[in-house]
């Protein structure tokens, strides 16, 4: 488990939305196909993806994903940030690839 603000600061990820910095992340899921994410991601996950739009937040909040990490330098749209603040889903951004973000985050979740 790792707290989302700790994850952001330890990995140096940019914070786009973080309505609740005390969110605990217990699992992760990496994917860009939202149906696949929907069907397979666990609750209390961080989603590692390049899908920087509002629908990603909808999927996240529906199945209990608590945070979204946008990779490869992608930035969220304004309405995505709004939706995320409303739903209390955090959005972070990084230049890391999904592979790199996945192992770094996995390491953090496992280590603490």
């Amino acid at each position, binding site marked *: 488990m790792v707290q989302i603000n700790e994850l952001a600061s330890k990995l140096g990820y940019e914070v786009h939305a973080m309505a609740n910095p005390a969110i605990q992340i217990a699992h992760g899921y990496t994917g*860009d*196909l*939202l*149906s*696949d*994410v*929907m*069907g397979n991601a666990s*609750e209390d996950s961080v989603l590692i*993806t390049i*899908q920087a*739009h*509002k*629908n*990603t937040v*909808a*999927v996240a*909040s*529906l*199945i*209990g994903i608590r945070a979204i990490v946008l990779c490869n330098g992608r930035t969220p749209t304004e*309405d995505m940030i709004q939706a995320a603040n409303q739903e209390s889903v955090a959005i972070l951004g990084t230049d890391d690839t999904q592979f790199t973000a996945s192992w770094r985050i996995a390491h953090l979740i496992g280590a603490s």
Partner: protein
Amino acid sequence: MQTIPINTYNSPTVILELIYRLKVKDVMTRKLVSVPLGTTMRAVQHLMREKSITGVPVVSGTRLLGIVSMDDIIQALDFGHIEESVELHMTKNLIVLEDDMPVSFAISYFDRYRFHRFPVLNKDKELVGIVTTRDISTRLLWEINHEVENLERMNLSTKVTDGLARDVQSFSILKHDFENAGFASTEIKKKLKQRDVFPRTIRRAAIASYELEMNIVVHSNGGRITAEYGPEEVVITSEDTGPGITDIDKAMEEGYSTANEWIRSLGFGAGMGLPNIRSVSDEFSITSTPQGTVVTSIIRFSELERKRSAKE
């Protein structure tokens, strides 16, 4: 003597399936602490204390030559051989497991032999892991938990008694309206939350309704999602005004999709929608003509959830 209190002949079917499905490589420890030839017994003794382990494989590259057990160390101490090389005092007469063997093999090996651990070799006879009774019981407990969870859900969700008046919510959905996609499913989720339905059930309903909603947005000319809340279940129906699904069997296959490039670039059209809906539904039906497609997904509540929502 360590044994695992599960046998391979008259355990419940779920357990039998489990111990045949799981392979040794799924339970073994891959992080190995091993020593090369020429290491002294003393060095192994220190290594054991330092790493809190009770058996150390002796290897030459990836070849397994023997194992130094705690017992071998005690013997060496007793007879004054502790400063000598491992090859003189290690256990050489080894019983090994193969990584592709079912866990049932490992369990019967632990019953049959006095060893506390078995080295695991792959097809090329390379040492790839080591397995202890603890590795097996930990993984089995984990899997059994998972199975019990599944059984619980099935048992409770199949009981049906007749009910009362139903709330009905209806949402109209526009073609290619990605902007508002997710609204219906969010509302359905809220409603179920108010009724104290379990998170697991809510998740199933959320998945079904979101996929139905997205199907209308992505593939149809527009349509409607209806949710009927009964005392025992929620019935989620999607109806659209065409153009219909040409081959329903194909549409039900995972990975089959007719979505175009730009829809895929948004992360939709993975060909998982209908299969996802079917897998979270207790009842699922689909009919389609060029005039429209109707999909019904029924999500049942467990007994406990019904009691709670009846208190309202």
